[in-house]
């Protein structure tokens, strides 16, 4: 279990791009369940879409990715030198729209990795109903290689 203060100690993203607000279950390097509350006040609803707010699918993927990043535990010296980044988005399905007022319950389970890549299966539910699912793969890159 992690609250927003503990989450912010572990991930670099900040509002309005912080997509996990609470972690209810966490098994380091294996799996997690987290919560994202979707408010009508979120800035992207102004344009997506005017009068008919729907959470963009890419941001649902981002919420899943942020939860995955909380699952990946690495030694401090690794995280100092390397950045874990999204490598692949596979087979994502957006089964039902996510609208303001929904509470996303996101579950991620590691399927492969430990070496150069780490893969997760992700499931997003609202009120126990499936809204989205898919797979995400991450890799680490040396921070000093960025922009070169």
């Amino acid at each position: 279990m992690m609250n927003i203060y503990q989450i912010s100690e572990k991930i670099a993203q900040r509002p309005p791009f912080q997509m996990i607000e609470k972690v209810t279950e966490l098994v380091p390097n294996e799996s997690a369940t987290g919560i994202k509350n979707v408010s009508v006040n979120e800035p992207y609803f102004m344009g997506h879409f005017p009068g008919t707010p729907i959470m963009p699918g890419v941001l649902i993927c981002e919420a899943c990715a942020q939860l995955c990043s909380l699952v990946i535990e690495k030694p401090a010296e690794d995280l100092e030198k390397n950045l874990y980044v999204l490598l692949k988005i596979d087979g994502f399905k957006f089964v039902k729209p996510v609208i303001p007022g929904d509470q996303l319950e996101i579950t991620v389970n590691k399927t492969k990795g430990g070496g150069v890549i780490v893969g997760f299966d992700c499931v997003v539910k609202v009120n126990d109903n499936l809204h989205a699912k898919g797979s995400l793969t991450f890799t680490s890159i040396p921070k000093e290689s960025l922009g070169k």
Partner: protein
Amino acid sequence: MANEEIKSKLKAFFMSDLGVDGDVLNYDTPLFGEEIGLDSVDSLEIISFVDDNFGVSMTGVAKENFQSIDTIAAFIEKNKA
């Protein structure tokens, strides 16, 4: 593990995980050429698969070793414990 078995496992992985059409994938087909068209993201998947399934690390290994199923299998054969 016989070399043939390694090649057959690699081919099954290319078809199931990387979406390569088995009909055009022979053991000597160039993987990163125009026909198959794999990219650097796929090469990371290959490295991960080889590490997990054969216990052989291909991180930082020269490009020539990734040319085809034949060359990957030869590398595995040469470097496995």
